[in-house]
């Protein structure tokens, strides 16, 4: 049995609950807006971050010709998440006050696709073990992370690929050693990304000051600084761990 799921609904062997999901103090609004409705947006085709005190907004083009803009706006509210689930109806003013006075491109975007709901952003507390008996967890259940590196789904796919290869090599009575190898191979990498996503969340919401200048200088090196995330090859990692993805898997 494998367990995955969202950070808020994480399945953990031995607990089976979401007690390990931790609210980050930030929540998100999403929307899709036709590019033609965003006259102030300098480049609708760009992948762009807008950063400010206690809020940021990411947008990128979607659709066959990039004719729509998908945005993800994050605010440092509410301080406490009271809802049972990870999505809550928005009672307060939309757009959030957090973006008042921002560039017109940002306010146009949010006003054009005022979302009636907000998503709470959660992480999962690190776990020492990802398996017990015949149960193993992966993805958000094991390492639910903030979305700021865009790695929640990617790390889950890496997990699934690695686990599939290791299980294919395991003997019928050797599942637990395979789970142990899986955890050994994946825990440090996902922990690093999980931590880096949380650090990035703070960097994206800095108030004006010296720290912003240091952050902005760091932004110019994003490709180099985060190559360890984006250039990772799970097949290479498997080979380094002594496992051998073969057949169709090697083509994945």
């Amino acid at each position, binding site marked *: 049995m494998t367990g995955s799921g969202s950070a808020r609904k994480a399945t953990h062997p031995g607990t089976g609950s979401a007690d390990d999901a931790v609210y980050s103090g930030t929540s998100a609004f999403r929307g899709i807006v036709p590019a033609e409705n965003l006259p102030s947006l300098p480049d609708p085709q760009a992948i762009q971050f807008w950063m400010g005190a206690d809020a940021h907004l990411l947008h990128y083009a979607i659709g066959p010709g990039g004719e729509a803009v998908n945005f993800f706006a994050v605010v440092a509210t509410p301080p406490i998440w009271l809802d049972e689930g990870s999505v809550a109806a928005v009672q307060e003013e939309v757009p959030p006050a957090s973006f008042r006075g921002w560039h017109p491109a940002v306010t146009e975007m949010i006003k054009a696709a005022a979302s009636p709901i907000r998503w709470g952003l959660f992480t999962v*507390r690190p776990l020492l073990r990802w398996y017990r008996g015949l149960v193993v967890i992966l993805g958000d259940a094991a390492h639910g992370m903030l979305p700021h590196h865009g790695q929640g789904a990617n790390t889950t796919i890496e997990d699934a690929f690695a686990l599939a290869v290791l299980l294919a090599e395991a003997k019928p009575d050797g599942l637990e050693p395979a789970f142990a190898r899986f955890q050994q191979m994946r825990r440090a990498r996902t922990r690093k990304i999980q931590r880096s996503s949380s650090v990035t969340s703070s960097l994206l919401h800095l108030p004006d000051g010296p720290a912003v200048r240091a952050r902005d200088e760091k932004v110019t090196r994003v490709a180099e600084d985060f190559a360890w995330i984006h250039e990772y090859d799970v097949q290479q990692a498997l080979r380094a761990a002594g496992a051998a993805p073969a057949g169709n898997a090697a083509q994945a």
Partner: protein
Amino acid sequence: MPQDTVLAGLTEVLGDVAGVDPADVTPEARFGDDLGIDSLTLAEVVVAAEDRFGLVIADDDWSRFVTAGDVIAYIERAGMIAPAGPVRADATKN
């Protein structure tokens, strides 16, 4: 667990994960300046130390580690309670 035992275990972890010379590992050794360990490598050290000592070190805690002695003190405070299953990070907080 005595400090010298924790130090010995941490020295092994640092050697395995980061290739640190055992002679360089003292409680006063700073991860960045003395041992050449950046924050990403420190995360790997932390995970390996967790496996070695059977505890979870909360992210907010290990991000404040400066010296090997900080890790040793943390592990000593947490005690040596080997987990039977998943352990929450806050289980080791004071």
